[in-house]
């Protein structure tokens, strides 16, 4: 035995840092449902003097239009996180359903672009997608997108609930396999053009604003800023319905109970497995609905939609809102504010002319800050109930 010393451990041990005590008022603020909203507004107000373009009507309109599709997807993720799971396959579902939309709805097809794709000649040809010209095609196409999403969700849910596989694994497989399948379907090509009735869902102004001088005989299109749009109406309706579902219904209580303690829920007669399957279906349906908005805005079916850092945006926004990654604590209203904050953050970083790399680094830092905030919240709750 050599000179190894057992006394070494008595020296130089790091002590865990201690937070100072937090004043009660500040604690109330941090625990408030609206904390992230206040934070966003404060951030906005602080930046206005430095970034005058922030308050441009064009920018505000753009900011809002970025918010709605992300909100729809994040609402679905909120359910999964609340039940104690995670859905990494949402981005892949968006890509798949977007490709399906293109393949079914395209009003024309180009052999130059698509002749290598396995769907060429099967679902789509020179004369357009399979549903082109069919009455009510847009609605059938949307139904197909939602159905495809629901099937993926069902597969995820059944694997998690009945085969007892970890949600992370199951949906990671989904992310890889379904994402690749979507790209294979079109050989990574975008499919366009899509019918006007579908594209309308992505922009369709309902209330728009023109802020230029009144004497112009014709208003240039690009000076009209839309504020109330179809995506807005859709996203808000989905968020409100989801809020009621999660916070006011028996099903919502089940979701919270399973997330809080699955064993307790099971013994108390909660249909745990059905709840888990339903939650994954909801998540995938929300992804498909988000895909409708993204595809329509893009005016194309695009299999690579929802790839890359998109997942970071979704989960980041939900977690910043305050929903716990460990389950049992989630609110749609938190997600609404989280999405708002995230979109605002992206927008301001863009306005600062930062490179895409810097933007992602800052986003990462903000998610880290959100995680620390989450720890702080938990500690506050514990202190108050000790």
């Amino acid at each position, binding site marked *: *035995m*050599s000179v*190894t*010393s*057992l006394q*070494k*451990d*008595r020296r130089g*041990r790091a*002590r*865990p840092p201690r937070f100072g005590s937090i004043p009660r008022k500040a604690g109330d603020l941090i625990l408030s449902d609206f904390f992230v909203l206040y934070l966003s507004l404060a951030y906005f107000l602080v930046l206005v003097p430095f970034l005058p373009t922030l308050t441009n009507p064009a920018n505000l309109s753009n900011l809002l239009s970025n918010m709605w599709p992300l909100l729809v997807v994040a609402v679905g993720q909120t359910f999964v996180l609340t039940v104690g799971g995670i859905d990494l396959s949402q981005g892949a579902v968006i890509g798949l359903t977007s490709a399906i939309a293109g393949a079914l709805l395209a009003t024309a097809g180009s052999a130059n672009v698509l002749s290598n794709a396995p769907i060429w000649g099967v679902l789509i040809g020179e004369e357009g997608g399979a549903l082109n010209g069919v009455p009510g095609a847009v609605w059938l196409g949307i139904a197909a997108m939602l159905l495809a999403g629901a099937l993926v969700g069902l597969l995820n849910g059944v694997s998690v609930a009945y085969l007892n596989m970890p949600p992370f694994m199951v949906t990671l497989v989904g992310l890889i396999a379904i994402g690749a399948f979507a790209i294979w379907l079109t050989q990574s090509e975008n499919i366009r053009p899509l019918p006007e009735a579908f594209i309308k869902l992505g922009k369709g102004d309902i209330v728009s604003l023109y802020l230029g001088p009144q004497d112009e005989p014709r208003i240039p299109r690009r000076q009209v800023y839309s504020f109330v749009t179809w995506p807005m109406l859709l996203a808000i309706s989905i968020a409100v319905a989801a809020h*009621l*579902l999660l916070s*006011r*219904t*028996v*099903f*919502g*209580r*089940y979701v*919270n*109970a399973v997330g*809080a*303690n699955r*064993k*307790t*829920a*099971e*013994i*108390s*007669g*909660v*249909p745990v497995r059905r709840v888990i399957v339903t939650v994954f279906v909801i998540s995938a349906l929300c992804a498909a609905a988000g895909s409708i908005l993204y595809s329509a805005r893009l005016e194309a079916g695009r299999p690579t939609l929802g790839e890359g850092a998109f997942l970071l945006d979704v989960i980041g926004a939900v977690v910043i809102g305050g929903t716990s990654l460990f389950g*049992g*604590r989630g609110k749609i209203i938190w997600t609404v504010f989280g999405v708002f904050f995230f979109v605002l953050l992206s927008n301001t970083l863009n306005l600062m002319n930062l490179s895409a790399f810097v933007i992602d680094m800052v986003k990462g830092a903000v998610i880290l800050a959100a995680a620390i905030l989450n720890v702080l919240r938990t500690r506050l*709750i514990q202190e*108050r*109930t*000790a």
Partner: protein
Amino acid sequence: MSTLLRLDNLSRDFFGIPAVRSVTLEVPQGAVLGLVGENGAGKSTLMNMIGGVLPPSSGRLFWRGAPYAPRDAVDAAEAGIAFIHQELNLFHNLTIAENLFIDGFPKRFGLIDRRAIAARAGELLADLELDATPNTLIEELSPGERQLVEIAKALHREAELIIFDEPTTSLTPRETKRLFDVIARLKTSGKTVVFISHVLGDVAEHCDHLAVLRDGQLVAKGPIADFPVPEMIRAMIGRELSGLFPDRTSIPQAEIVFAAEGLGQSGVVENVSFEVRAGEILGLFGLMGSGRSELARILFGLDPHETGTATLAGARLTGGPGRRIAQGMAFVTENRREEGLMMEAPVAENLALVTIDRFGRLPAATVDRAAMREATEKMRDKVQLKAADIASQPAKSLSGGNQQKVVIGKWLMAGPRFFILDEPTRGVDVGAKYEIYALADRLAAEGGAVLFISSEIEELMGVCDRIMVMNRGEIVGKFAERPFSDEAILAAAFREVAA
């Protein structure tokens, strides 16, 4: 005998509410001090101040006569105080040796010196007569063995004072005996022990001194000889308990509520048949591993069975917990933290969990929150829950006894006919135990049938109309006549163990 640790007027408030009030106490060196008190009496708060987890609001501590003010648990450990919590602080995925050295590995050439830690760990394990190699993973050890590792950790850090918080709750009788042997040996080697327990018989038998806390105050202290168990109870609850058990207010009726017929699952239970009548409390006694909790899980549809049937009021029971609850069953599991409660969720949510679907209104099953609030408030009064604001207070903020009342309450909300209580008084103080017995009696008096599972033979003899005994998955004895003979019951329970 000199004083190792002195507490001088020690107090601690939480948001203006005193949890410990000017406690002055000497811990004599080389002796075992028993600390008893009801849940919420301030035992944990007091020990947390000694262990450096909480700073006192006022008062001082003296360690070997010198002022002692630990800033955190590391300070306390360095002074020589070890705290063995009810929930052990071990890393299940690491070996015994790694756990012992987790706060500072001896290194050789910058790498962990595995031989050194194994050798030192081996010595400690031999001292404690723990029959395992230092490289055994913690997850492979039984609860009793894990506790010995925790003690080894204390010895490794050269602790002078070792505090045990409810050390026997998850131990088998044999492991419990071994623990007391170890404590006796610690004492002979000059160590000082503080022993916190609800099992007053153990305290009377193994401690030298006693301190009793009630409502944060030290209400009695002295040599153990001055405190026979009834005297301890009187000091703890501040009044005479008319008996340990309430009088039964009902007698079993003719109507059979629940019947099991030849239930079997290979390797778990074998040919189990019994019936419970309306108004009856049937006791089920068995040692750990006898299959009693496994039987309960089968009865409740959580685990499958290969043979036999179970019926409730003549109707055959099928399906999972959801369907059996609808048919009138309820199940208080032995493990309320993991299977009984959503610890972070408010008390009201916990109370409403079983019956939440009954508060759903068409068309979308929106919860009728006013009705839910009314029903949960009513249940709070019915089970005499000591909780101010059940709508926002999380379940984990309650004391053990009150947590158990929440679990019982959530089942009462469903109005069940057949109640399975699995170790309902584990980790619960004397006063709350009495209330739980009274609840069991009331369930029976209201025409329900109760299956009361316990490893405490005294409580079964005190509250049950009949007692059956399980051993290795089989019912090996049924005792119908009061007064029960504990010798006969124990003999049946140990039958094959002894053979």
